């Protein structure tokens, strides 16, 4: 095999190699894109948010949102808890304009702040914010001190006061831990909308990625007047309201 490599052979070999490498590389790229989104950690390229139009949203629809949340996450049937002890992930709130007396109803849940006070005060790191902006309680670490409940300006968190059984498969809940709206994180990770958003038939409640210029929520927020509740606290909430 002492043959010297002539020009023709060199071109043959090198082009074959190039084709081979190109095939392998394209294969790798294809597999990377084909991988399920659930296999990769969430990133801060997205920020999930919700826009609630209180002018379009009827009281019946708000009640529907509350019961959709109960049905999805399995809260609301606690028998031994009384009054304030009862878990409330989302509630119907009525606000009144002092000057005109106009009453507006709105659903209030965890506002998924960018700077969540509940995360600041948690002594065990149980209260946490995911990279994509969803604020959660890691019940494995929660010691039930309830500092986060005191810190939350929206009274969005609840404490489980009794032993529970028959929880939803995707939503573990237990006595001695704090819980709140998860923005239906199990559904969001599968590309679906939260249960409360899905329960409203109109476009009164929009869910989506606040950062994505193509998303409905981003485009609507650019057009309409919207507000954050207690904007003075500079928490930069993920849940926005228009019409209040």
């Amino acid at each position: 095999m002492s043959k010297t490599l002539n020009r023709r052979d060199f071109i043959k070999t090198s082009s074959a190699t190039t084709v081979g490498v190109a095939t392998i590389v394209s294969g790798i790229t294809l597999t990377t894109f084909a991988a399920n989104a659930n296999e990769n950690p969430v990133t801060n390229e997205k920020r999930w948010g919700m826009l609630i139009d209180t002018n379009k949203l009827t009281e019946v629809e708000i009640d529907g949102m509350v019961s959709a949340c109960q049905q999805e996450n399995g809260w609301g049937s606690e028998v031994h808890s009384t009054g304030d002890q009862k878990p409330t992930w989302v509630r119907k709130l009525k606000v009144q304009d002092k000057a005109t007396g106009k009453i507006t109803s709105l659903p209030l849940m965890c506002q998924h702040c960018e700077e969540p006070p509940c995360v600041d005060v948690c002594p065990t790191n149980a209260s946490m914010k995911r990279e994509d902006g969803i604020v959660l309680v890691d019940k494995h670490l929660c010691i039930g001190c309830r500092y986060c409940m005191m810190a939350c300006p929206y009274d969005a968190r609840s404490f489980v006061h009794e032993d529970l059984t028959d929880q939803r498969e995707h939503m573990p809940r237990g006595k001695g831990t704090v819980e709140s709206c998860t923005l239906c994180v199990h559904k969001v990770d599968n590309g679906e909308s939260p249960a409360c958003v899905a329960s409203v038939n109109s476009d009164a409640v929009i869910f989506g990625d606040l950062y994505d210029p193509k998303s409905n929520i981003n485009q609507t927020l650019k057009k309409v007047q919207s507000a954050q509740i207690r904007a003075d606290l500079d928490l930069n909430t993920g849940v926005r309201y228009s019409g209040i």
Partner: protein
Amino acid sequence: MYRLVAILMVLLMGNVFADKHADHSNLGEEASSIKASGKIFHTDGLDVIRKMHPDFLNHKRDKTLREGVRTKEGSLKGCVNCHAIKDKKTNQYHPVNDKDQFCSTCHQQVSVSVDCFSCHRTTPRKGTK
């Protein structure tokens, strides 16, 4: 030398039979059918899953809750779905942490309490997904 080999063989045979006669009645419905079909679910080997399952579960819980990785590998939901047994009379599932059920058999023996199920569901899926 032959005597030693013979003793060793007897011991090994004992192990084989012990495994054959071991009580797998609480293995769970899906797990039993996988076993019957000859497939192997825990490909790392049973020794590994028996010893390491707390680590697998702890690792996965952080990945899922904090990073949103929702693969089936190391999922507690998966354990429950596969290893739960239906009561033949009532047609209801026994909770996996009940006495003599899949999780409890070993945990009773080694006296280690399981804390998963004060929050997690103990029977396979039902109602809304």
